[in-house]
């Protein structure tokens, strides 16, 4: 069984017609590599430092999550959705719950909708905070920005632990609402965290936006124009960095996002610097949403009384639901045949599909840029390989 040998390169793809000119170096980056955000491997064909060909190889973290879900009840696969994109467990839960509610036609009470928006925006905040740290780490900044990000993110994770019981594996949403109500004093603590965030963002912007080395390392690399991004199914901050206003919170208006006034930041060139800045600006917009959501959080039940917890059998049929997760468009496609197990359970992974144009972004760039471009796409291998 030859695991290492990748597919032979289709003939004539290297810019040099005859590789005899200079010897091309075939380098396998990963799967055990310090900056591939998990077990991800790229077969790169290098001419000196310049990338000539780049072939991503997947499957090192494949645990067949979908087959597991098809042999378990709807409720039992909710904790497994935490492990898809393990940085944003609450948005994974929401996408799954949203699709099952669409499948079974369940209503969600008012307070639960507000809680979902608050938790999703907190998840987006901590995901983008940690993204900054990893991107700077890829560029060699020795983890300083990463540690500032972790320190700020820790406050958000403490909020999650106080509410759901676990920092990263929350398993908090149920079909038709949330599992339990807020502990006393949680909203006030959330208000404190939200108020402390702008200070952190100002500090980060002073450290990053005018840093000459960072601008030189990120500007002008990894850019692809919007039309090709849409055709390749790319979604999330990458699309908005290319100047295309496509945010599912505004397009699908799922949940109660239409009640909050927030803006969608758009970039100019779609290169790595724009992707970095878009995420910084998105964090500020999330803070606006959190302000208004925390202010008018209504009282009331957190779960739809008719929703059954055990032996939940949605009517036969199928549904495709999608939300704007911090990585992009996270979708669930469920087919039910009225048995307690879903007949077909499919996750639409934004991290995997955002990698479609990785080769196009990297060809011609240097080997050091490949790491920065991969970092700017912000992938998590739990979601890529499922």
């Amino acid at each position: 069984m030859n695991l290492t040998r990748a597919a032979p390169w289709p003939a004539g793809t290297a810019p040099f017609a005859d590789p005899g000119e200079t010897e091309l170096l075939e380098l396998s980056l990963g799967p055990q590599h310090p900056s591939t955000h998990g077990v991800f491997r790229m077969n790169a064909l290098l001419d000196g430092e310049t990338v000539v060909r780049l072939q991503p190889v997947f499957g090192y973290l494949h645990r067949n999550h979908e087959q597991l879900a098809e042999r378990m009840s709807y409720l039992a696969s909710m904790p497994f959705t935490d492990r898809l994109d393990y940085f944003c467990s609450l948005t994974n839960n929401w996408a799954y719950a949203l699709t099952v509610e669409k499948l079974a036609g369940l209503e969600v009470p008012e307070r639960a909708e507000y809680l979902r928006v608050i938790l999703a925006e907190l998840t987006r905040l901590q995901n983008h905070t940690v993204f900054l740290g990893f991107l700077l780490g890829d560029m060699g900044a020795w983890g300083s920005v990463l540690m500032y990000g972790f320190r700020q993110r820790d406050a958000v994770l403490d909020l999650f632990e106080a509410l759901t019981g676990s920092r990263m594996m929350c398993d908090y949403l149920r079909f038709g609402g949330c599992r339990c109500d807020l502990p006393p004093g949680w909203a006030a603590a959330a208000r404190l965290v939200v108020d402390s965030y702008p200070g952190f963002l100002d500090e980060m912007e002073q450290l990053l936006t005018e840093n000459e080395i960072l601008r030189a390392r990120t500007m002008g690399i990894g850019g692809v124009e919007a039309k090709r991004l849409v055709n390749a199914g790319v979604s999330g901050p990458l699309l908005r960095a290319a100047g295309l206003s496509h945010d599912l919170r505004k397009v699908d208006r799922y949940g109660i996002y239409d009640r909050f006034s927030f803006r969608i930041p758009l970039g100019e060139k779609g290169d790595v610097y724009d992707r970095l800045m878009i995420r910084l600006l998105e964090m500020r917009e999330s803070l606006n949403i959190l302000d208004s959501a925390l202010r008018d959080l209504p009282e009331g039940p957190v779960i739809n009384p008719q929703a059954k917890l055990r032996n939940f059998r949605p009517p036969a049929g199928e549904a495709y639901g999608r939300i704007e997760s911090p990585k992009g468009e996270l979708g669930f496609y469920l087919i039910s045949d009225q048995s307690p197990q879903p007949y077909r359970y499919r996750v639409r992974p934004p991290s995997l599909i955002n990698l479609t144009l990785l080769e196009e972004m990297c060809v011609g760039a240097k080997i050091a840029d490949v790491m920065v471009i991969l970092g700017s796409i912000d992938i998590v291998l739990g979601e890529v390989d499922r």
Partner: protein
Amino acid sequence: MNLTASGLLFFAFAVLTLGAGTAVALVREPVRAALVGALCFVGVGLLYLWLGAEFLGFIQWLVYVGAVAVLIVFVILLTRREDAGGETEGGRFAGLRVLGGLGVALALFGALAAAVLGSGSLYREVPEEPMVLEIAALGRELVAGAVPPLILVGVVLTVALVGGVTLALVERKPDA
């Protein structure tokens, strides 16, 4: 043969230099040959130091070990593997080739030896106090006396460098 400490040192440096020199020819691996060559240059530098010419010794190290050795290594790396020359081991005229090589070597060595013995420098009395080099004087001498040759050498070097670079560029097909 009264073996003084410095005599012993000279003998060691000489063996080091000559040994490294012959090793360059004999070692099979090209990269190892380049590095042993660097060792030979270090030996020559040591000989200068033994003679008390520190300036010349360090210049020898700076120029040869620092630049020429690395240049040779780069040349070995950048040339392609396949046409590194077939092995001329064995074959019909092996004997003849060895004899020819020896002959040329002996002729060369003979000419060198004759020149050195003829110059009579071996028998001159070694001055008791080695001449102490005054750096500033050396500087003034270089700048005042030998300006034209200095500039000429610089120009030749630059032309050679620029030539080499353009050759390398032309050879690579312009990127599509």
